[in-house]
């Protein structure tokens, strides 16, 4: 018989015992190993929106656009005309004098922030186990995103080179 258990073999379960068990009323059912977030007995009510699909599509499309925008940005900023050494207030002011570069930077700001925020939203959805934790994390992230996007937009449009 190999049922004698040596302590070296006892590996604590990473899954928490909630003690809630299966909810069948049988006391023996309380002692089970439950996954972090089990499917609820009742299927959640449907939202009937296309939000998740639009978010998914946005990730694909913004990703393609961002690749071009960011690679272009990096080449201009870091490679062409002496690389980083040329970057200064005057250089940025010169670029933002043109509506084209204003538009480029604005688009890059919005797409990158929304792309990143949506990715973070999915990470939070995946890993925040408690509903309240999820709500708080998403709230914080949403606030930070809105703040950064609005501040960036404000700066791009109200930038005064004669400051």
């Amino acid at each position, binding site marked *: 018989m190999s049922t004698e258990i040596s302590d070296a*073999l006892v*590996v604590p379960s990473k899954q928490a015992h909630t003690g809630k068990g299966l909810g069948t009323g049988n006391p023996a059912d309380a*002692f*089970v*190993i439950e996954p972090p977030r*089990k*499917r609820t*007995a009742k299927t959640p009510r449907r939202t*009937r929106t*296309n939000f998740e699909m639009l978010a998914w599509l946005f990730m694909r499309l913004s990703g393609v656009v961002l690749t071009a925008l960011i690679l272009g940005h990096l080449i201009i900023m870091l490679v062409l005309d002496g690389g980083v050494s040329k970057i200064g207030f005057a250089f940025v002011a010169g670029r933002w004098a043109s509506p084209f570069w204003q538009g480029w930077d604005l688009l890059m700001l919005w797409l990158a922030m929304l792309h990143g925020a949506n990715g973070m939203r999915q990470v939070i959805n995946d890993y925040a186990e408690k509903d309240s934790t999820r709500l708080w994390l998403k709230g914080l992230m949403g606030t930070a995103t809105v703040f950064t996007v609005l501040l960036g937009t404000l700066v791009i449009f109200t930038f005064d080179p004669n400051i």
Partner: protein
Amino acid sequence: MSTPTVEHSAALDAVEAGGTQLITVTFRIRRFNPEEHPEPVWVDYQLVMDPKERVLDALNKIKWEQDGTLTYRRSCAHGICGSDAMRINGRNRLACKTLIKDVNPEKPITIEAIKGLTVLKDLVVDMDPFFQAYKDVMPFLITKGNDPTRERLQSAEDRERFDDTTKCILCAACTSSCPVFWNDGQYFGPAAIVNAHRFIFDSRDEGAEQRLEILNDREGVWRCRTTFNCSEACPRGIEVTKAIQEVKRALVTRRF
């Protein structure tokens, strides 16, 4: 080869001579019996077996000859019923379709219950949430109007469209290999989507819109990260991730 012969061929002799080479294999099984120990425990069992036998044969041998308390599910033992999906050497497989020689018997072979579902005892998990997700996608024929007096005909091409997803045996190997499902059991999971796919792309079925609506929701296909764990785990070789992507494409093309 047309005449049956009682004499052994050279090839058969070779197979018989080499066929009974027994080896000692260690099975490291993650056992969980709350009546004995509140935490799961890895227990080693040593067996002398033919490496061409299956992992399920080893489990049976342990249960019948060494330790009758070992608990696991198995029914047909031929890869059709889908009862004995388990995590063997860290990968979801059917114990009845995995040969010992294919999972490196030189090292201890680890066996655990599938992940993401409540472990009741040893290798037995609570499959209710899994089947609940399956039921939610309405895996039955939905039609409108009167039933025809004859059978519902379908061309070979139309049948071919969803042939891959008809092979599912609901063993839960795919769903319990999905990292999204591990973290959030509310996700429908690959198996439910595969079975929805089987009806969404069936030309005889008229409930595709309803099923797509269900899978378009928060916990539907958009949670899939195309990790490909499900395709790798499927003991029936279903291209699970491809099926999920086809449902996504159907949603995108129907909504725009």
